[in-house]
Structures are given as C-alpha cells and as structure tokens.
C-alpha cells in the first residue's frame, strides 16, 4: 500500500486513529461525546426501544415480532444460561440477557450503514461489562463459600500433590483475578477493532481504485469491493459470535463461582 502524498488524495490506510474521532460535545469533560459514543447511544436506544415495545405488546398468543423477540430471549435463556448453569440459570438470567443483547447491538453497529463502527471497539464498553461479570462472580462466590472458602476452592484445586500448589496457585490466581476479566474485554474489543480495520481497508481500497487509480488498477476495485461485502457478512457473524462467546464465558465464570465442585 503506497500512500500518495498530497491533500485529499491518495490512499489512506486505516489506522488506529479511526477509534479516536474528534469530540463534538463536552470536550475535555468526562461527558465528552464523539462519534463512537453517539453510535453507542443510538444502538442502546434502538435495542431498548425494540425490546420494550415487544414487551409492551407481548401477548399470550405471540405475533411475528413477539416470536422473534422470544426466540432471541430463549437463545440466551436456553442455549447459554440453562446449558451452562443448569439450576443456577434463573438467578443470572437478567444479567446474561443484558450482556448478550448489549454486546450484540453494539457489535452490529459495525455493519450498519452510516454508523459503520462497532461501539464495542472502544475498550470502555467491554471493560465495563467484563468488570460487572468480574465483580459479580467474585461476589457470589465469596457470598456462598466465604472469602476463605472461595479462595481455597479456586486457588487450591483439590486432588493435587501439595508441591504442585507452588505452580498451580499463582496461575489460578492470575486466572481468577486478572485473565478472566481481561480476556473477556480484550477478546471482544480486539475482534471489533480488527473487523472495522478490515472493512475500512476494503472499502477505502475500493474508493481509491475506482476514483484515483488509473487504468488496469480500476479493475481491482471489483475485487476489493467483493472482499468488502464478504467481510461485511463475516462481521455480522463475528458480531453474533462474540456476543455469544462473551455471554457464554460470563455464564461459565459465574457458574464456576457458585458450583460446589469444579
């Protein structure tokens, strides 16, 4: 990729600056808003509106919209919560449902025209959700087993020769206290960032090939456009998949905290 010099011309490779757009309100305060924050708010508004309207209209005999809403809710309830947590599912279902649909909605903004960026590609949102999961699984674990019991359960897994605890305990501690929440947040953000960069690359290249490159290179626009469409569809898949993985792991972590045996 050769970046042509000069104002307004040439090919701009996507950069991480994509994720730091200019603020347009409350700049310099904690309430600063930029384009991605706005997208996040739009996604939230649409998500909440859809589900609240569906809930308001919910009837005993479901219509089309209600069927779709129930299928979506059932996916979280049955395929994530119940399959992972069994009898613990009901207790954490609202949390898991919130996380799943929040992540899904904000992932999907990455492929929605005009929004064009996943609002989970800013680390804040995944971090807040991961922190919620983190605090929650620590809280329910400690509440159930007491602080000592919880630490013993997690840091001193039974059935090992004592000498191995020298090795296992630090690893387990890192797992429980650092890696689980960190990987939750990073996996989601990194996926969304990568997806966005790929889409920008494809469509930016198409634009460049079509309007600025000469001769035979124009034909390459077809290739890059095709790739862009394909990656857009792929990003839809990734959006769903990452929402599923995030929620599934949250369910697994919560379940590990409250289960007697690991």
């Amino acid at each position, binding site marked *: 990729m050769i970046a042509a010099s000069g104002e307004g011309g040439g090919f701009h490779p996507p950069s991480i600056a994509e*994720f730091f757009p200019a603020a347009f309100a409350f700049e310099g305060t904690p309430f600063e808003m930029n384009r991605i924050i706005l997208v996040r*708010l739009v996604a939230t508004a649409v998500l909440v509106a859809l589900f609240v309207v569906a809930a308001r209209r919910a009837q005993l005999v479901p219509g089309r919209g209600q069927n779709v809403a129930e299928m979506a809710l059932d996916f979280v309830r049955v395929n994530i919560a119940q399959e992972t947590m069994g009898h613990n599912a009901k207790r954490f279902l609202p949390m898991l449902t919130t996380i799943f649909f929040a992540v899904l909605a904000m992932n999907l903004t990455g492929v929605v025209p005009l929004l064009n960026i996943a609002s989970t590609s800013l680390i804040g949102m995944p971090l807040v959700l991961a922190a919620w999961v983190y605090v929650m699984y620590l809280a329910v674990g400690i509440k159930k087993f007491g602080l000592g019991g919880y630490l013993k359960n997690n840091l001193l897994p039974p059935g090992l020769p004592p000498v191995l605890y020298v090795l296992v305990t630090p690893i387990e501690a890192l797992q429980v206290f650092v890696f689980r929440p960190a990987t939750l947040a990073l996996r989601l953000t990194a996926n969304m960032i990568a997806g966005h960069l790929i889409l920008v690359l494809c469509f930016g290249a198409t634009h460049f090939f079509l309007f600025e490159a000469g001769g035979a290179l124009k034909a390459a626009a077809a290739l890059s456009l095709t790739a862009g469409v394909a990656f857009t569809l792929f990003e839809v898949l990734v959006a769903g998949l990452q929402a599923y993985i995030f929620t599934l792991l949250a369910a697994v972590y919560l379940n590990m905290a409250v289960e007697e045996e690991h």
Partner: protein
Amino acid sequence: MRILDAAALLAAEPGEEVKGVNLLIPADYDILWSIVVAVIIGFAFYRLVLPKFTAVLDERTEKIEGGIAKAENAQAEAAAALAEYHSQLAEARAEAARIREDARAEGGAIVAELRSKASDDAARILENAQRQIEAERQQASVALRAEVGALATELASRIVGEALADSARQSRVIDRFLDELEATTVESGAASASRES
C-alpha cells in the same frame, strides 16, 4: 469520511501520534458512557422486558396445562356419559323385553280367560238348551199323555160302551195301560228316545 476525520484529527494535533496502546486504555468519557448505556440496557431488561416475557411465558404454560387438563376432563366426562348411555340403553332394552314378556303373558291370560269364558258360555247355553228341551219334552209328554188318554178312553168307551164311565176306574185303567206302553217304549231302546228329543 472517517478517514478524513482521523486525518483532520491528526492534522489538528500534529506530532501527537495516536499510540496503539491507547486502544486498550479506556478514556474517562468512554467508561462513563459505557456505564450509562449498561445501566440503561440493564434497567430495560431487568425491570421491563424480562419480567413481562417471563409472565407471558408462565401464563402460556399455565394456559396450555389448563387446556390439557380441561381436555382430559372433557374426555373423562364423555367416557362417563357414554358408559351411562350404554347402561341406560341396556336398562331400556331389559325394560322393553320385560314389558314385551308381560304383554305376552297378559295376552295369554286374556286369551285363556276368554276361552274359558267362551267354553263356560257354550256349556251354559248347551245346558239351557237341554233343560228347555227336557222341559218341552216333558210338557209334550204330559200333553200327549192326557190327549192319548182322552183319545184312548173315548175310543175304548166307544168300543165297550158305558161300562167304563166311572172315572176313577177309568183313570187307573189308562195309567196301567200307559205304564205298560211306556215300559215297552223304554225297552225298545234309545232309538225311540233320541227320536223324541
């Protein structure tokens, strides 16, 4: 557009290259707005969406279970009604058979009664007729006896003259004559008797 925005940002702050690590370090506004939307979405699902859908699902389950129970009840009722119908039908059949039997027996009794009554009547009529015939025969016999006596007396008196004018003797003679006559008649058998009747 975003590319241009970013370029503008970079242009606006020359020399300050955005570092990659910044992607992993949340800005304060990022955290704040994340919490805001998380709370909004959480509130919606915790308070509005899930309770409503749970209620609807529970109600639906209840309705379906109620419907199934109702159907089972209806089926049981139908079976009971059928059984009752069958028993009533059997009862009615038995009743009909009984009535038919009664009617037959009664009819037989009536016929027998009528028959006996008829035969009684016939016997009575026969007896009356015989009695009447007997009476008439005796009447005829008495009349005949008197007449024959008178005729014979007259005949005899004409034949033997006045000798037999004494009535007592006359009567004795006639009776003797008739007794003899009757005896010969009885002897002559049932043929003459049947001819009389």
